[in-house]
């Protein structure tokens, strides 16, 4: 699963956020989703999608060594994470999410649930699908 974006197709529906929180937290709570949708209205009128591209910079800056890579996906060890926020600062995609009820940041683990429910192909799997 290589998550890729075609932002021009995003209609801002946030279904990606709902399924992300349901799948990864067992909660219906888009504020706990590892994907952010930012609207740019009234001008120029489009949506921006912020999601991790597994670049690994978060792991490189983590002072607690709480972020580890397996099979190309970086995961946060919640036990080790001190909630210092260094990774949030460092993320070039601004894709690490903070939630008041969670100590550790919320980060995409490339589960692909958002891809499955993005009818518009705004979030897609570059391993299996060409850009629309």
């Amino acid at each position, binding site marked *: 699963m290589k998550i890729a974006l075609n932002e*021009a*197709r995003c*209609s*801002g*529906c*946030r*279904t990606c956020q*709902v*399924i992300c*929180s*349901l*799948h990864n937290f*067992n*909660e*219906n*709570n*888009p*504020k*706990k989703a590892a994907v952010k949708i*930012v*609207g740019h*209205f*009234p*001008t*120029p*009128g*489009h*949506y921006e999608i912020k999601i991790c591209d597994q670049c690994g910079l978060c792991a490189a800056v983590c002072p607690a060594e709480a972020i580890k890579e397996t099979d190309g996906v970086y995961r946060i060890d919640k036990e080790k994470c001190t909630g210092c926020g260094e990774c949030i600062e460092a993320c070039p995609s601004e894709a690490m999410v903070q*939630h*008041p*009820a969670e100590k550790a940041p919320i980060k995409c683990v490339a589960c692909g649930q958002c891809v*499955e*429910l993005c*009818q*518009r192909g705004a979030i897609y799997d570059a391993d299996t699908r060409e850009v629309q």
Partner: protein
Amino acid sequence: MYGYGGNILRINLTTGEMNIQPLSQDMAREWIGQRGFIAKILWDELKPGIDPLGPANKLVMSTGPLAGTLVPAGGKVSFGAKSPATGIYGESCMGGHIAAEMKYAGYDVIILEGASSKPCYIYIKDDQVEIRDASHLWGKGAIQTEKALKDELGEEFQICTIGPAGEKLVKYACISHDFGRQAGRTGMGTVMGSKKVKAIAICGHNSIPLADLEATVVKGKEMLKGCFAKENLDEWQNYGTAGVPVWANNIGAFPTKNFQSSYLEGNENLDGKIMREKMVVNDKGCFGCPSPCGKYCYVKPYNVYTEGPEYETTALIGGNCVFTDIEQIGYLNYLCDELGLDTISAGNVIGFAMECFEKGILTREQVGMELKFGDLESFKYLVEKIAAREGIGNILAEGVKYAAEQFGGDSIKFAIQVKGLEWSGYESRSAPSNMLAYMTCDLGAHHNRAWSVTHDIAVGRKVLEGKARKVIELQHIRPFFDLIGCCRLQWVEIGFELEHYPEVLRYVTGFDYSQDDLMKISEKVWNLTRAFAWREIEDFGRKYDYPPARFYEETVTTGPNAGDVLSKEELDFLLDDYYKLRGWDLNGLPTREKLEQMGLGFVVRQLESYGRKIS
């Protein structure tokens, strides 16, 4: 409580007091949500006879149990109050993202009571609720205000606002949200303006508890994918309601020249394909929508951004005021949105004024300029006068019914409204069931409750028999979506099946409703809002259900249905049939038997205490 935000937030703007009360299980089970909650609360808490723009009125904002979940298009919220436009039950719904957000903040209902002495906005971040100063926002456009508050509070806030028209108490001011979604009808923005509330900004971080999370995920996915697989999905999401004007014209239902005709010459220029090519910059969806119909547009010749025009706007600004240039309509749509005016009522009012001018009922001296159908300057001039309540605008700001009473002549015959609410965008002299639907809508002449032009076409446009039955069926199904917090357009437009909803409601809420139970609740709300009108107006009844005389005295002037008219006898046939099937008396008032059968015994007792004679 499963499926719900769980709380009712009450804010008294006069005293600054607030309280948060849990939503009760009984309230949830018996009234489901959104319009059900609003109708019940307004019935219980408003005293009949209050001034809709006084502090005794309440603005109730509510959403339903499926909003904010994985169920498709759970993004609907409704606002309700005693309507300043009609004096009876008022309510309007809109999409966007604020319905979901209020649930994440923990609320199913927000009640604004009293009135603030100075401009304010309501700030809600979970259980932190504040009434904040809005003097820096007062006077700003509805869209500008939303942008200013987003910049101030952050992207994660969802915000609804009013424009200058709401501040000035124009009777058809709307509530705006998400840069182009509006709760347009029955003057809910007017009520918000009367309370001096410029905006409501909400951000929530909580989860919506689900009765059966796993089953909700499986069913939610199945429903979404069911929508994705619909054959006409692409057509629908490419053009949305902008695909409708040409069809409506070809069947002779497109309001033209203040409803003189149902056919507009040059309507082909309003085609969704032309609009998409010239103006659309993005497909914009509401929360959880699998079939986004919002067309976000840049209108190049006027250098403005606007969402839409939607069908109703193109019908009432375009057809009704005779504009055949989609970019001009886009520009006028932008003006109405920024001023905070309902485009349906505004298009009616301005078309009416143009006709009054043409007929010599209004003069250049009265208006301040010459008015002409199809003249951009005429529309612009009037819409700005209306929003500012200046000159002629101060009369037009009251709506067509009031304006006709002031202007005199025979203008009341072509003031296109029912119960004081201007008619939605379907000319219906050749569509008896749709005529009946708008005549009997609990809010006034509005399409939200039942729309049945396709039924008229399917079974015969002259046929009267059986039409009332269909209207009643639709008046329960369409507003059912306004109980659950979901958009109806997946069902209406792409043919998504109704039978999914009882099952998914069970997984989300734990309440085990049958399809029949849900329709019964929808019918109960229908009877309650009808009773609300009767509680307000002593002589309420049949005479309030007639359309303007134009529809039964004048024939359609041009197009495929030229010559059509529905006589008063035909309208009475439809009403007789309708009242009988509803279990109401011949004057269109709910009977004791019907109210009790619906579990509305408390309504009988109250109506009697106000001296109403129930048969």
